């Protein structure tokens, strides 16, 4: 049982790490700011989410699990805010900088 | 070489880097940044000393760790004061001469009161 759980953790963490790599590649390769932003949100939402999922399988008890999930939700919120604000900043008619 | 020594050497380089920035940059804001960089290096040195003093079931000596926490807060307070001074100074147009009338606007950094 614990072997299956470990295998699932490794799978999820690897997938999460892959999305971080994908986010980096996108950030480096995409031509304009908006599509780079699109790549960045993949790392934020999916990479962190998958790593949290993998670690959830290793934790016992409700409180540590709740803490992990709230880290992910806060990360999502931060990502969503930044994405909104930066999109407005790079969009013509928005902020210029 | 263990991790603590590694970070100790890292802190030595950080202090050097910060000192260089403090000397070289003419802009006050960059000097404040560089000074904070030195601070980070010094705190890290304390952390290394704390880590080496791990004993009695603790991962590190709690006394230097507590000192660093105090230091971080004080560093923040002094940075805030320095930045407020800088912003105030930069908002004063042409400080080369004294104000013509005593209308309350005192020259920044003026003579003894």
């Amino acid at each position, binding site marked *: 049982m614990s072997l299956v759980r470990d295998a699932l953790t490794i799978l999820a963490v690897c997938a999460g790490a892959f999305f971080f790599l994908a986010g980096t590649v996108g950030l480096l390769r995409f031509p304009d700011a908006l599509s780079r932003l699109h790549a960045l949100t993949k790392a934020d939402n999916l990479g962190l989410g998958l790593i949290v999922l993998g670690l959830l399988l290793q934790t016992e008890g409700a409180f540590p699990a709740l803490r992990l999930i709230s880290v992910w939700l*806060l990360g999502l919120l931060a990502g969503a805010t930044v994405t909104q604000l930066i999109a407005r900043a790079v969009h013509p008619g928005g902020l210029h900088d | 070489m263990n*991790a603590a020594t590694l*970070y100790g050497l890292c802190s030595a380089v950080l202090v050097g880097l910060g000192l260089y920035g403090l000397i070289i940059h003419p802009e006050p804001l960059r000097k404040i940044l560089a000074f904070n960089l030195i601070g980070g290096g010094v705190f890290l040195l304390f952390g290394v000393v704390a880590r080496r003093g791990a004993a009695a079931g603790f991962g590190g*000596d709690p006394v230097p760790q507590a000192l660093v926490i105090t230091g971080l807060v004080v560093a923040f307070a002094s940075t805030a004061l320095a930045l407020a001074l800088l912003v105030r100074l930069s908002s004063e147009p042409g400080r080369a001469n004294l104000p013509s009338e005593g209308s309350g606007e005192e020259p920044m950094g003026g003579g003894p009161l």
Partner: protein
Amino acid sequence: MVFDAGLAVLVLGVAAWTIVARDTFAAVVGFIAYGLLLALVWVRLAAPDVALTEAAIGSGLTGVLLLGASTRVRRTKNLTAGKEPAAALRLAAIGLCVMVSAAIAVLVLLLPEPAPTLAAPVAANLAATGLGNPVTAVLMAYRAIDTLLEVVVLLLALLGVWSLAPDRLWGGVPGLHYRADPDGILTFDAQLLVPIGILVGIHIFWVGSVAPGGEFQGATILAAMWILTTLSGLVDTPSVSRRWLRLLLIAGPAVFVAIGLAGFAMAGAFLAYPIEHAKLLILIIEVPVTLSIAAMLALLVAGPPERSLHR
């Protein structure tokens, strides 16, 4: 070990960027990254209490302070217009800094073995404080006088910042007034984030007695949430001459000093706690001190008064 080496290289790289970057704003972003990476280093050095403080103050609040200052100084045109240093000075500076670094590096390599430590006495007396976290015990019991003085330093720094206000704005309202946009992301963010943040702040403060966390870390988060509400325009910063604000600022240090003086009567020394009530007294000090520190930190970020009292 490989991880540590990589992390150290990354810290050094970001620090070097902060120094060499041409643009001040880029250097500020570099500094925020530096604080964030140092938080990781503190976890590696088995100092999670410090990691929390670094993440909250070193990276978060200092970052916000620097971001605000960098745009304002840039906007009002550079006041220095200083010249680039000459090559000779640059070389001399490099020489000096290499020597300083080398001296510290040698000292690090020559640190005494076995390392001197106060961990054992702290552990031996931990039970007497009723606390489970040795760092909190040091801050609140063995070196409580340092902590008291630190709160006073914060208060003095705040008075210093306030005294930078021009005479006509004396006792006015710090910072700028932000208009709330009811449909904007910022309003949504503040409404969602602030309650969660206050909860996290109280959690970090509360676990400080038994686990990493404590008053400074909790207070920083509370301060950040206060600043967020003013940034989003939901609440305006109070004028600095408000009586409740001044009472809030002074409550922490006052209770701290009062209990310290009571220590003469109860246990025969300044800031000495009688053993049977140690934990309760520490808690009575910590709650107002945390609230006072939160207010001080938030007002330090807000800066000197910029709007007059009579609007």
